Structures are given as structure tokens and as C-alpha cells.
């Protein structure tokens, strides 16, 4: 896949701090890339650098082989959907959707046809005369999408496209958005702080922290092989516990966790140059640990709370040394206050990740 949109060492400083710090990404034609990160991670600034609302202090933005780093937004032919939509309140739906086409000099009969087509695309056919204030949040979001798509941009940029919708609507809108951008096949970059949204919408996900790119990959890559504790913790649930490497074997690694030895299958964690005797941070997915009877050889703990979630629940357990972990298990089998023994689940594949203790997270 050759890159259609390329970010090359993009850096943007505000005052002394770098909001975006040497971020490089290559996005293929028609690919959907999600920028994921907590607030302040630089994901929105990255998007604004792409849109041309910010000029980078260093680095380049290349589209289709052409450097547009310093091109004004007008010249980029990128469509953008803003977080709060930024629909023009003094224009009706038609006026909003036609705005970009008018910039291109599209005139009357063609203009109406393309406005209607764009509205049809988002299932708002016949809404031309509605005023923006009369629309529901979901409809506004779709008008914003139609407005961005109408001039047939080269790249679609979405800034937290679902954050302004109520939760009930968010899931459905996400499906529609997912289907729409794939049907059109438009190269898309979207910003979100919700992992679920990023995983659902993005072909690939780029995780950002403090302006730096931590990891980029398919949702599967990120979940199964997080590059560091931060990514592991940000992408899905994970509890952290201290461990020491006892042996490095063919089939996996043996570690000692609070006095008990556990075998971690090779495919379970990312082993990066660990040595025997090294202090490590083990990150456990809830499903990677199994609650057995508190027999010798198990990591003994007390169940402190249960969060009911249907057939399985999330249990909060505290080990005898005081570490708090989240473990999933069958809802009915275990009660709060019960003593349990934790062992690595046999089907733990991808559920336990070992990192050098110094690695932050």
C-alpha cells in the first residue's frame, strides 16, 4: 500500500512545550486512520495540522505526492467535520451543504443536484429548507458530514465526530458512519479519545501521548501486542502487578508474582529482551487470570467487589500483599468476600504482557 497521505516528522510547539512531537504516519488511499489518545495528547492538533489550521514548526504533510505543509486550508481540498459541527446557524441545511460547492464555482442546476446527492448520502433527502436550530443533534452531525463531503474532498477529517451525541444514538451513528466512509472509499483521519470508537471505525489506530506517537497498528495488533504499558492500559482494561523473571523457556516465560510462580505462554506477552532475574511489570487483561480455589501455588486474594455485566462479571480482588486487580469470571460462581487463588488462564493468549519495571504506564 503506497501512502496517499503522509505525515513526516510533524512538530508543533505552543510556548515551550511540543503539542505534537515528530509524528510520522503514512495513510493509504481509502484507508481510515483513527488518532486515539487522552486529552492533551496532541491528536486534535495533529488533525488541525492536517487541515491547515495550524502550520507545523517542523515536518511535512504530503498528499498524493504533493507537499501541502504550508498550503492554506482553502487549497487543500480536505473536508472536515468539527467537534461541535460548526454549522452556519444563519444558513439553512441547503445553504450549509452548498457552501463548499459555491467556493468551487458550481452553479445552479448542478449545485442543487449535488446538494441533494450529498443529503441523500446521509439519509437527509428533502431536508434542504430546514433551519439548523430545528435539527436534532444526530441530524446536525449528518448535515456536517454532508457539508464536508459535498465538494468531494480528497481526505475527510473528523474531529471527535460522535462525542456530541447521546450514548443511545452514538452506537447507531457509529455504524452508519462506518458504512458510509467505506462505501465512498474516502481516505479518512478521525480523532477520538474513546478506544471502542477508534477500534470500530479505524482500519488502523495511532495511539498518541503527550504529542508523541506511541504505536500505530490494527486494533488487533494494539490489543495483542501493545508496545508499552501506556498503550496496554489505554487500549482495553489491564491491571498492573510486579513480577520477577525466573526462566525464559521455549514455550514462554516463567515469572514469580508475589511469591508464586506463573507460566506465561510465549504468545501471551511481548517479550522484549528480558533477562532472568529482571524485575518486570505484568499487565493482566481481566480475562487472562482465572479464579480458582485458594490452594498452594495460586496467588491468594480476597474478592472485594463485583461489577455485574451479565453472564460474566468484573471482580475487584485484593492480593494478600495488597495489590488490587480486575479479573473477569462467571457471575454466579463467586461472591464478594470469598477467598480465591489466581492462576493464569489456559486460554490467556494475548492477556498477559511483561514490560521492564522502569517502563512507564
Amino acid at each position, binding site marked *: 500500500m503506497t501512502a496517499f497521505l503522509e505525515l513526516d516528522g510533524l512538530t508543533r510547539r*505552543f510556548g515551550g512545550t511540543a503539542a505534537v512531537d515528530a509524528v510520522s504516519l503514512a495513510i493509504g488511499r481509502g484507508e481510515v486512520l483513527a488518532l486515539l489518545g487522552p486529552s492533551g495528547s496532541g491528536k486534535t492538533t495533529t488533525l*488541525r495540522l492536517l*487541515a*491547515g*489550521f*495550524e*502550520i507545523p514548526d517542523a515536518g511535512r504533510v504530503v498528499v498524493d505526492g504533493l507537499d501541502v505543509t504550508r498550503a*492554506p*486550508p*482553502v487549497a*487543500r*481540498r*480536505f*473536508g*472536515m467535520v*468539527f*467537534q*461541535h459541527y*460548526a*454549522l*452556519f*446557524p*444563519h444558513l439553512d441545511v441547503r445553504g450549509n451543504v452548498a*457552501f*463548499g460547492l459555491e*467556493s*468551487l464555482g458550481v452553479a445552479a442546476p448542478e449545485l442543487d443536484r449535488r446538494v441533494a446527492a450529498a443529503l441523500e448520502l446521509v439519509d437527509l433527502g428533502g431536508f434542504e429548507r430546514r433551519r439548523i436550530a430545528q435539527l436534532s443533534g444526530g441530524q446536525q452531525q449528518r448535515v456536517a458530514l454532508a*457539508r*464536508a463531503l459535498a*465538494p468531494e474532498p480528497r481526505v475527510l*477529517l473528523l474531529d471527535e465526530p460522535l462525542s456530541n451525541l447521546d450514548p443511545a444514538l452514538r452506537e447507531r451513528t457509529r455504524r452508519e458512519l462506518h458504512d458510509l466512509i467505506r462505501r465512498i472509499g474516502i481516505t479518512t483521519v478521525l480523532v477520538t479519545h474513546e478506544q471502542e470508537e477508534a477500534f470500530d471505525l479505524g482500519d488502523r489506530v495511532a495511539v498518541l501521548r503527550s504529542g508523541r506517537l506511541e504505536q500505530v497498528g490494527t486494533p488487533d495488533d494494539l490489543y495483542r501486542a501493545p508496545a508499552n504499558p501506556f498503550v496496554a492500559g489505554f487500549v482495553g482494561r489491564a491491571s498492573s502487578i510486579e513480577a520477577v523473571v525466573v526462566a525464559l523457556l521455549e514455550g514462554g516465560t516463567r515469572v514469580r508474582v508475589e511469591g508464586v510462580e506463573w507460566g506465561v505462554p510465549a504468545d501471551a506477552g511481548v517479550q522484549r529482551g528480558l533477562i532472568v532475574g529482571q524485575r518486570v511489570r505484568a499487565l493482566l487483561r481481566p480475562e487472562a487470570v482465572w479464579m480458582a480455589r485458594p490452594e498452594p501455588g495460586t496467588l491468594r486474594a480476597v474478592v472485594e467487589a463485583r461489577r455485574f455485566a451479565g453472564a460474566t462479571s468484573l471482580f475487584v480482588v485484593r492480593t494478600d500483599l495488597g495489590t488490587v486487580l480486575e479479573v473477569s469470571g462467571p457471575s454466579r460462581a463467586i461472591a464478594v468476600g470469598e477467598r480465591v487463588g489466581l492462576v493464569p488462564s489456559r486460554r490467556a493468549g494475548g492477556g498477559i504482557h511483561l514490560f521492564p519495571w522502569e517502563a512507564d504506564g
Partner: protein
Amino acid sequence: MSGPTGGAGRRSQLLAWALLLALAWLIVYPLGLVLRDAVHSSGGWTLGYVRQFLRRPTEWEALWGSLWISVASVGLAGMIGIPLAVLVTRYDFPGRRMLAGVIALPAVLPPLVGVVAFLFLYGESGFVARAVQALLRLDEAPWRLEGAAAVLLVHAYSMYVYFYLFTRAALLSLDGSMLEAAASLGAGRWRSIRRVVFPALKPALAAGALLTFMTSLASFSAPYVFGGGFRVMTTQIVSTRLNGETALAMVETVSLTLLALLALVVFRGAERDLGGSKGTPPAPARLRSAWLRRGIATLAWGLGIVLLLPHLTLLVVSFVPLGTWTTEAVPPAWTLANYATLVRDPVRLRPLLNSLWLATAATVASVAISILAAALVVRHRVRGRRLLEGLLALPWAVPGTVFAIALATAFSVHAPWTGRVILVGTIWILPLAYLVRNLPLTSRATLAGFRGLDPSLDEAAASLGAGRWRTLRAVTVPLLRPSLVAGATLAFVTALGDFVTSIVLYTYDTRPISLELLGSLRQADVGVAAAYGVVLMAVSALVFALGTGRGGSGIA
């Protein structure tokens, strides 16, 4: 183009420097020349004039007069305005909404009109005085409306509206649930008022007080017409200058400016807004006793009518033929002749047309500059933006008389290499003066409008391929319209009725309504003077009604 947070583009920055330079030339430079002339004579630098100023008891008298009359005006205006605001927001009675609007009317009327209207009603030959005279069978008028008391009365009368408007707005934005919260926490009625209501009102009260203080410090028409032997600095400056003691007038001007700036410093901080709360205002109390309700209604309406009576008198007088109305309770004859004179006599019509075009030109220019400045300050975040904002607000802090003197000083000399050209005596000086005085009004509204605008709307337009010009025309200006209209309305009405600056700078060809009004009054042409006053009122009210009708937010 660079983004809003990406630092200013070169062109914007250049434009900003140019604008700063122009404003400095128009606003700061003339004031600086006044300051220089106060301590400079043909023989070089001197403190002679300052010493002369300090030695004259009349100067101290005038300065003290300006100060105490302003403080007293704040007190008296507050005593009228605050209870009125409480009355119309907290109690429900018949006609409450209408009254609430009616008593805000004087806000849009030129001060001179109020002064003249007051004269017609309460002056020694006014309606009330004559009625009392007839009733008590006195030989002469029972009182003379003159001196400090008269000035104070006129001030309180025309400035209560500031307290009224600010207090009412604050009461309406009060969150009703805050009062409920206070009550649920066991606070009694007085404790609620002291601990919850008063702190919420404080910024509004401070703003009202500041506006009243500054307005009465700068007040010219009232002391000019009613002052008699009572000295205040504004009128003193003009008369000193007429006496030919130019340098002394400069020292006086500086002293008045210092007093104004001192007031600003004192009030600073108190005015700061606490930020609007979101909740719904407490509902006006339904008075249970019908007797009490009637009492409150009578009180409120009575006050309202008393406050509007002068303007009604003005209206009546404008329809009375010259010399026919003497002692009767109702005018014996009615006529439209006074208005006919205004339209038919070209000499009388000229001031009307003058004021209209002067005010229009000054307002248009001032709005255009404000849009440019607001875009540079808010959107492009140019360097020097604080300075730009400060310069735009400065003319508000400086009394009108001071500005008039400053402009008259700066632009009466032909010395292009020092940035001075002769404008005094040309038709350009008045529009320029109005423009400078309008800038704080329009720029304040425009800046607030720009700040309230979601910057991503501009970005959305840019991402949709709209250039700077199309974005301004198709997105920014339409969205700013309410603020632009509000600012422009206020500016137009102020310029239309201006007297303070005009009396210093007018020429025969540009004489505005206000001067002609006073001239007619001097010639005892009372009907025509009243007709001028009514026209001024009507145009102001019409413009204001149009302005607020267009989605303007009323008083900016």
C-alpha cells in the same frame, strides 16, 4: 493565512501596526499635545500655568464641584434606579412588562434633550412652576431652577437609567435555584439578600456606579444650562478657552482627565463580572393582598410617569404656537407650525440634515474600524492586541470636553511633518470627533460579538474553500449582525444628539441639531426648540427600536 493560534500572518500584523498608528494619531497624540501645552510655552518648558492653576481658588472650586456632584449623582441615581429595578423584576403587578420597558427609554435619549425637557417642566417658567405660582397666587416664580441642586436633580433624573438597566439585567440573570439553595440551607430572607443576592448584584451595581460617575463627570449640558454660578470643570474649560487663556484651559483639561482616570482605577476590579449563571431567574412574587398589589402598581407607575413627564412636556410644547401658552393648564391652541418651520426654512433644516449625515458617516466608519480591529485582535491575535483594545476603549474614559479640546488643539496647526493638519473649521473635524467618541461603543460590541463566535465556523468556511473575504461576508458579518447593530445603534444615537464635542468644534456649515436647539431656546423660540428636541427623540427612539428589532440585544 495562518490559523488563529498560529500567530499572526504578516499581512494581518502589518495591518494591525497601521491601525495602531492611526488610532494613536487620532486619540493619543491630541491628548499628548494637550499635556504638552499645559507645561510648555513659546519660551520652552514651564510650570507657570500649573502654578497659576493651583493658585486660583476657582479652579479648585470647579474640580471639587465636578467631584462631589458626580459622587452625589451616583448616590441619587442609585436611589431611584435600584428600587425601580427591584420593583419591576421582583413583584408582579398590572402592566409590569410595559413599565419595565418604558422607564428604560431615557437611556436612548440625548442628554441635552433631557435637560431641555426638564427646563420646560420644572424651570422657573416651566409648567410646574407656573402651576404652583397660579395655585398660590404668587407674584413671581416660586423657584429658580439653577445651581448645584438643579444640576444634581437633572443628573439623577437622566442617569438613574444606568442603575436601573444594570440591576434589572443582573436580577434577571440571577439563578432562582441559588435562592432556593440558600433557603434550604436555613438562610432567612435578609441573610439570603446579604449573602446571595447582593454579591451577585455587586458587579452590576459597580458598573452602574462607574457609568453614572463618568457620565456626570463629563456632563456638560446640565451645568451649561442650569449651572448658574455653580462651577464644574467641563464648563470651566470651555469658558477659559473662550477667554483666550488657552494654556490654562490645557491644565484644566489635564486635571479633569486625571480625575476620570482616577475614578477608573478606583472602580476597577469591582466591575468584574462573576460570569453568568445558567439557571432560570426567580419568578416575580405574586402579591397576595390585592391592596398591596394595587399599592405597588400605583407606586411603580407613578414613578414611571414622573420620570417620563419632562419628555411628554417637550412633546406638548412642540405643538404650541409661540407665546400662546402662559398660565392655562392645557394649551389653548395647537399648531404644526413649529415642525413646518424646521422643514421649510433651509437655515433650520440644515442642522437636521447635518446631524443625520455626520452621525451616519461617523457610525459607518466606526463600525468598519471595529470589525477590522476585532478580527485582528480576536481572530488573528496580532501582537499589540491589548494595546489596540486599550486605544479603542480610551475615548470612553476621557470626558467629551477633553477630547474636543484635544482635537481642537491638535488639528488647528498646519505642520504635516509633525502629523498635524488644519481640520478645525473644515467639515472634517466633527465627523472625526464623533468617530473617535463612537469607537468605544462599536468596538466593545464588536469585540464581544467576535469573542462569542465559535472560531471553528471560520475554519469550517476555510475548509470549504472560502477565502478570507467570502468568509467575512458570508459567515462572520451575518453572525455578528446583532452585536454590530447594537453597537451601531448606540453610536448613531450618541452622535446624533452630541453637544459636548460639537460646541467646541462645530462650524456654521456643520452645526448640529443640539446647537440649533439651544440657539432657538436662547432666542425664546421655545416651540421650535421643542420641535428639534422631539425630532431628536423620535429619530433616536426609531433607530433604537429598529436596532433592537433586528435581533440586537438592546443596550450593549
